[in-house]
């Protein structure tokens, strides 16, 4: 079909209305905003490509072109979702896009021509239906945006200075620390949808404890002097980003411990600096991505993925661990890519492995720098280390 610009836009908007309605229904069902965010991005990307590319390049668009154009739009939407921090399950996001794409094809080839006699010769223009669709799409998106705005969690500012903890957060909120804000004695998160940002925590059994909740974001926090774990996560969904955990002098504590979160979906530790402790970052029975972190001077493992955990360990720097730099243990599946592990010392866990897979675990290694360790990598007790690039959505 030879679309006019107006025809492209009207056809896209009309086909988008059922998609955004479906996205709102899914969002209401899941109590999460990603479907609406994704739908909004789908529309934005589609309209931008319509105006900037498709209309100029394609004077005529054959039917087959819908496939590569759809794939292009999907790729751009996924990239933008990642860049914008839209935390969407990949499979569901792709399914939403694919459903919308399929519907748009059915409408363009069958539905719209039946609805409007002159659809094909008008270059995809829909007349009053097009205007109505534009208003409907805008209304639904505006309604969703207004709802999101109205439901924003309250922002609580923690003034600079020392605050005696523990602070227990029992409602959905954003706790933002002003420069110099310090909590002594720990923070306990007891509600879902909590964000803690730019807060320093000193002391406490756990620096920050998150249990039995979902949608927690720890962004730019720093923890020091915790007696057990710096950041302690149990049965919770969490994103930890740009944190700093100082466990120096604590031989048995753990910097970040994320355990038993398999049912909460994928969790993330990204951009953190962990110093000291027994394990720098450890996961148990979790599906966690550990990326772009710096871990050093631990008394045992730098990073450990254990107890049937799954996840990616990528682009991390592990220095001066004792025994093992990165450990994939106890029937876990680990994709270990582009990490640098150096100066691992002999310890009670071994002679100084850069990477060790043990007890029926599978570790896939790709482009890691492991040379500066007594043993670069190893596999023991029915475990496997393979070297091939894994599929990664990153």
């Amino acid at each position: 079909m030879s679309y006019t610009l107006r025809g492209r836009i009207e056809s896209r908007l009309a086909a988008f209305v059922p998609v955004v309605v479906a996205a709102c229904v899914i969002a209401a069902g899941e109590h999460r905003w990603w479907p609406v965010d994704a739908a909004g991005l789908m529309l934005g990307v589609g309209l931008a490509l319509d105006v900037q590319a498709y209309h100029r390049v394609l004077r005529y668009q054959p039917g087959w072109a819908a496939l590569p154009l759809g794939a292009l739009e999907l790729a751009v939407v996924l990239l933008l979702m990642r860049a914008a921090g839209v935390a969407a399950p990949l499979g569901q996001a792709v399914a939403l896009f694919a459903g919308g794409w399929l519907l748009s094809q059915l409408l363009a080839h069958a539905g719209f021509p039946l609805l409007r006699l002159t659809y094909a010769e008008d270059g995809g223009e829909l007349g009053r239906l097009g205007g109505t669709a534009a208003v409907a799409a805008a209304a639904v998106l505006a309604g969703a945006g207004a709802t999101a705005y109205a439901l924003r969690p309250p922002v609580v500012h923690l003034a600079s200075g020392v605050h005696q903890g523990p602070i227990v957060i029992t409602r959905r909120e954003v706790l933002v620390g002003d420069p110099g804000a310090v909590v002594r004695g720990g923070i306990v998160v007891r509600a879902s949808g909590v964000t803690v940002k730019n807060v320093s925590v000193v002391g406490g059994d756990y620096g920050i404890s998150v249990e039995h909740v979902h949608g927690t974001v720890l962004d730019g926090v720093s923890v020091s002097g915790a007696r057990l774990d710096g950041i302690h996560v149990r049965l919770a969904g969490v994103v930890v980003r740009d944190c700093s955990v100082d466990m120096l002098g604590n031989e048995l504590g753990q910097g970040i411990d994320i355990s038993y979160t398999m049912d909460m979906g994928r969790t993330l530790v990204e951009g953190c600096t962990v110093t000291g402790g027994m394990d720098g970052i450890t996961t148990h029975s979790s599906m966690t991505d550990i990326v772009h972190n710096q871990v050093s001077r631990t008394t045992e493992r730098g990073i450990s993925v254990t107890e049937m955990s799954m996840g990616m360990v990528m682009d991390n720097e592990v220095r001066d661990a004792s025994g093992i730099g990165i450990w994939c243990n106890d029937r876990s599946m680990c994709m270990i890519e582009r990490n640098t592990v150096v100066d691992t010392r002999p310890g009670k866990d071994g002679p100084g492995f850069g990477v060790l897979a043990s007890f029926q675990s599978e570790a896939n290694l790709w482009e890691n720098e492991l040379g500066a360790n007594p043993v670069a990598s190893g596999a023991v007790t029915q475990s496997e280390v393979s070297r091939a690039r894994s599929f990664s959505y990153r």
Partner: protein
Amino acid sequence: MRVAIVGSGLAGFTAYQTLRRELAPEEIAVFGADDDPAAAFRRRAAAIRQRQMRSESDGHCLPTSFPGLALSSTVRRRSVRPLLGTLCDCFHPTVDEFLAHVERLRDRSGWERSFRRARIERIRAVDGGFELDGHGRFRHVLVAPGHPGLNVPDELRSDPRAVHSYEEHDYAPTVTVVGAGLAAATEWLNALAAGSEVVSVRRREPVRRPLNVPREYFSRRGLDGFHRLGPGERSARLRALLAPSYPPGRAWDEPLATAMMEDRYRVDPSVNGSAQVICATGFVHGYAHDALLAGLAAAHDLDTVDGWIVVDPDGSVPALTDETRTLALAGVAAQWAFPAADTLAGARYLAHGFLGRIRSCRTP
């Protein structure tokens, strides 16, 4: 009776299918010489032994582009190949499939109840409508007279070897084919397949394009610019767009290349001593060759440019159309509105325009 269609060929038939969405058969009168809307097409397709349509899935007589012939072909053949073919614009229904489609529509649309065997010689504008040769007064009239006649070059009119491609013929051992369009290309292959030696005589190299005109001229994308052109520019554009063409593809090229290597096919500048000369030169151009249109233009002093009657983008004649009545053209006569007016898609476009005029008419 509100509406009349003058002409019972495929353009009139397609318009009838569109009108039937909103009008009963008793509200429409179709005037023509033959009650078979595909009669002329069938005769011409048989003459050039055409087996496949140049048009694609939407080359049909229904009022909407969907469902196309690919869908019905998929159901009938129990194969998804026709539908997949539409994705790459490489599905072309067979002539038999198309004729069966016309027959089905004819049976179920009430065509016979509307058809009147009569040749309309004159259309006269009267108050609130048009008088058709004593057959009554109609508010809205669509004139779809078809091509005015076969075009035979002057120098070949009296040549006993000459036959027009759209007339029944066989192939002599040596054949000259004059022309460069789809009919000419079809005749090259036909004659070669019959064992003849073939000479192609043409004034210009053929244009290779899938459809009669570039695809954007089938939608507003190309038509808006076309409609904005002044008379001289539009006439020149039409001549360029309507230059003889046939589709690209190996099915055309390989037999010609093989025959050329065997010295059985060549291009010559003029007609030579072949035993047979086939004039694949299409139809004569211009409303003046059609007595009805010529009379209409003269009687109502209609605007014309280079053989085309000037019509609005929807095919209506401005001087004879207002809020109470419509006189519109369809088929080849409406190329001023739609360059590919003599195709099925063109017939549908003009039918939509005509129905739009009827809808907007304030009088009952």
